[in-house]
């Protein structure tokens, strides 16, 4: 982080008094935490550790894990590429209908994932809105890994936009104004002042997007289909394994949880090192 950022942090820390918490908040907080943690514990009790290694290293499991990591990474990159400019426009400009625009961008958050998949199908499918155009261009996304990445990006993008826009509004425009007064061009201000100030927000947004992409199920199965090594990501493999081999499904679920936890943990570590 640049010196400006460090300065803001230090001031904030200095002026904020330590707040005491009312004792009663701990009760609902503990209940809520238990509600989240208990199902994970219940899952752990169902894992047959003897076969765990064999279950998660089967050919189909490894193919699903690899595909999941590849697609979730690709969609996180896309989320950053498109989400950062979207967040900047929402946070730093004002135009008519901005509220509506923001709601529309956040819409995938409230849509059931299957509905997202149907919407994508009606847009990019063979008979969709852009289907004909894409056929002329010789592009076909149905049943390809690209379709998986599109489905994941669609549902994960709002997470990045929301967290980054919040971070930008919090950071304020003071340093940007100063930089502009000193003669910095907009691109330079954006890259050297705006972005460095919101790196923590960007990182947490990217992590949220990655986690959402990793867990994506409904939109993928509706829009992309399910074929080993091509479109069958880890959540789809888990759902399928459950049909014949519940033990394998439990083992794979644990693997998915472990991967997600690892990613969040690593990013947290990297963030606090900033």
């Amino acid at each position, binding site marked *: 982080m640049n010196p400006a950022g460090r300065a803001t942090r230090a001031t904030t820390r200095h002026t904020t008094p330590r707040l005491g918490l009312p004792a009663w908040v701990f009760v609902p907080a503990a209940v809520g935490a238990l509600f989240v943690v208990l199902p994970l514990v219940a899952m752990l009790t169902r894992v047959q550790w003897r076969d765990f290694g064999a279950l998660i290293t089967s050919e189909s499991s490894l193919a699903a894990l690899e595909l999941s990591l590849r697609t979730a990474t690709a969609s996180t990159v896309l989320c950053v590429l498109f989400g950062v400019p979207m967040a900047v426009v929402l946070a730093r400009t004002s135009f008519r209908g901005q509220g509506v625009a923001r709601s529309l961008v956040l819409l995938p958050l409230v849509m059931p994932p299957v509905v997202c998949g149907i919407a994508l199908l009606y847009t990019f499918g063979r008979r969709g809105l852009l289907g004909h155009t894409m056929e002329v261009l010789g592009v076909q996304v149905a049943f390809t890994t690209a379709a998986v990445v599109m489905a994941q990006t669609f549902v994960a993008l709002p997470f990045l936009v929301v*967290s980054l826009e919040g971070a930008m509004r919090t950071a304020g425009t003071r340093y940007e104004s100063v930089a502009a007064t000193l003669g910095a061009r907009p691109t330079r201000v954006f890259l050297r002042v705006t972005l460095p100030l919101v790196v923590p927000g960007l990182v947490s947004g990217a992590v949220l997007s990655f986690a959402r992409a990793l867990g994506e199920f409904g939109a993928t199965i509706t829009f992309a289909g*399910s074929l080993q090594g091509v479109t069958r990501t880890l959540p789809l493999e888990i759902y399928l394994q459950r049909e014949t081999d*519940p033990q394998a499904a439990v083992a794979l679920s644990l693997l998915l949880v472990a991967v997600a936890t690892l990613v969040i943990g690593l990013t947290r570590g990297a963030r606090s090192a900033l």
Partner: protein
Amino acid sequence: MSRTSNRLLAVVTAVVLVSTAAACGSSGHGSTKGAGASGSSSSSGLSGEITVYAAASLKKTFTEIGTQVQAAHPGTTVRFSFAGSSDLAAQLQQGAPADVFASADTRNMAKVSGAGLTAAAPVDFATNTLEIAVPPGNPARISSLRDLTRPGVTVVVCAPQVPCGGASVKVEQAAGLTLKPVSEEQDVTDVLGKVVTGEADAGLVYVTDVKGAGDEVEGVEFPESTAAANTYPIAVLKSSTNPALASAFLSAVTGVQGQRVLASAGFTKAP
């Protein structure tokens, strides 16, 4: 982080919770409640209510049979929970309270009866065979199972792990063909969805699915389909709190009227 971003985070959390709840609510556990009044017992001596766990492919036919049962025995109520057979079997094994279970295959019924949950031996009441579903107009001009192996034809089937996929493998073997599907779907609804939207040129689904989809797809019959007829068994469960009404429902399914309802939906009689 400051108040603004915390508030945003709260909004996001709320929104995610709501959407998750909505997604859960929309999963296929629609229960149909009949018009039967509670309490008053009919001349047949049957009263009260039962819950029937039935395969999703039985939704239309069983709802109709349930209405018939309620009409024949005033004062009774037949409720349904429709979902994938393996989902229902798993729920029953975890102790879900139900009176009757009807599965789309013998494998999932075996799970339930094997766990000692059925009151009597399951009865086979219908069979279902595969058919090729194509989009209206049959753009890829499919007329046989062999046509599905033509290069450039996008075919979607069920994954071998689910009943319809197991049946697909059997017909492939019977015909001596190997299909190269672009996708192996989780269930027959997903296969049908890919055909209805025109994403796939053809899909292997059940005869009853083609009939149920109306004008949205066309069906192409093929002789090899007889190699894989899926048998539907039904059984009264030991945990039933109303075994009399549960048996009456089972009799209605296997009886003349019930069989007529099933036949008109495309099911064939169990051998």
